[in-house]
């Protein structure tokens, strides 16, 4: 069960696909979009998404094969070219929107929020909360809502490599205050920061659908086949005796998001007894919820690698 996390190791040789090529591509794209929308505005940026989505669809066979395999499972039928295009277009749209949402320019966006009461109740009770998301839809849309309806700290924990990339995007946008709230995972300090944030009644966000190599994982059923999902985020919440909520920022169409909060788990009693079983149950239940959201909104899944491959995660 206990495996080694390597702090500070950014995309080692043989790292999972998502830490390498595609992430680089999407960072370049994110930078370009930031530059573009700053100069010409949202509409020209939006129109450019069509050739951009087509380019990514045509240029990268491996992610395309992974996307096809995912869509076949989520749709329950063989995906056609328009299905693939919709997925890529939604992905590109969230990157364009990030440039707006991250700077708080969300006036023209329609953002429906569901389940905020669950989060507000925890906040009102002064209870720190772990919020689990996924690489599904837009984490920025979610963050926007959390920022608005949330008088407490929000810290997002990310793997070192992703944190560095996110920081680069934030730097490009000049959002120094926000970047401070990104905690790179993998060190004792990171865990202590999470604890301190929760102790202040703050929120700690983690994406619980990807694990770097050698992290603790558990194979659980996901869209019809076992997929290795990380146990770390659930374990962290258990160790810190924090309640857990799920959160998804679903892309519904141009400048239209649905942000959902769902109560997920109560704080676990202290001690190791029964913890492994409780964590395993939570990983399974998380996968089941994720599966349901994927079936409901199949074009929001932004993991362009084989999530079912054992050594991919």
């Amino acid at each position, binding site marked *: 069960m206990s495996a080694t996390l390597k702090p500070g190791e950014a995309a080692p040789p043989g790292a999972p696909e998502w830490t390498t090529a595609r992430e680089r591509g999407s960072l370049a794209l994110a930078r370009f979009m930031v530059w573009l929308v700053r100069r010409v505005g949202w509409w020209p940026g939006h129109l450019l998404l069509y050739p951009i989505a087509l380019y990514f669809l045509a240029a990268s066979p491996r992610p395309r094969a992974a996307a096809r395999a995912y869509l076949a499972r989520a749709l329950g039928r063989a995906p056609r070219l328009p299905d693939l295009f919709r997925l890529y277009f939604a992905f590109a749209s969230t990157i364009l929107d990030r440039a707006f949402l991250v700077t708080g320019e969300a006036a023209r966006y329609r953002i429906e929020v569901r389940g905020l009461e669950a989060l507000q109740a925890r906040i009102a009770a002064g209870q720190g909360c772990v919020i689990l998301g996924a690489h599904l839809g837009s984490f920025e849309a979610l963050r926007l809502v959390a920022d608005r309806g949330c008088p407490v700290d929000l810290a997002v924990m990310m793997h070192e490599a992703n944190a560095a990339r996110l920081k680069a995007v934030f730097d490009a946008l000049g959002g120094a205050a926000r970047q401070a709230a990104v905690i790179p995972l993998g060190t004792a300090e990171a865990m*202590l920061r999470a604890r301190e944030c929760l102790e202040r009644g703050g929120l700690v966000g983690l994406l619980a659908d990807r694990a770097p190599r050698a992290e*603790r994982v558990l194979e659980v059923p996901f869209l019809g086949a076992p997929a290795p999902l990380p146990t770390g985020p659930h374990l962290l919440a258990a160790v810190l005796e924090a309640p857990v909520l799920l959160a998804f920022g679903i892309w519904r169409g141009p400048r239209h998001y649905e942000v959902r909060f769902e109560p997920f788990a109560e704080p676990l009693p202290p001690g190791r007894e029964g913890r492994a079983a409780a964590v395993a149950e939570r990983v399974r239940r998380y996968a089941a919820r994720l599966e349901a959201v994927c079936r409901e909104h199949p074009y929001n899944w932004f993991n362009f690698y084989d999530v079912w491959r054992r050594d991919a995660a």
Partner: protein
Amino acid sequence: MTSGAPASETIAAPAALLPQELDLARLIVSVLSLEVAPEEIAPEAPLFNQGLGLDSIDALEIALAVSKTYDVKLRSDDERNHRIFASLRSLSAYIETHRAR
């Protein structure tokens, strides 16, 4: 209290743990349910990655147990964290310096 223990015994042990280090080793082994005898933990060996092979969640559990048992709070803004968590010996030394007596 230590008068009964002949010095030769301490020297004969493969890795000479100080009494407070042995206490901490017992705490770590029990908190993390490690399959290693507390006496066998080399005091200077790295706790994380190589060595005992612990990860950052294990570190968090150790930090929580240390604050409960010794009333010593490890904080994220301590620049020495890397050194404090380096080995059993360094963590024990930190606790001994900061614990309430």
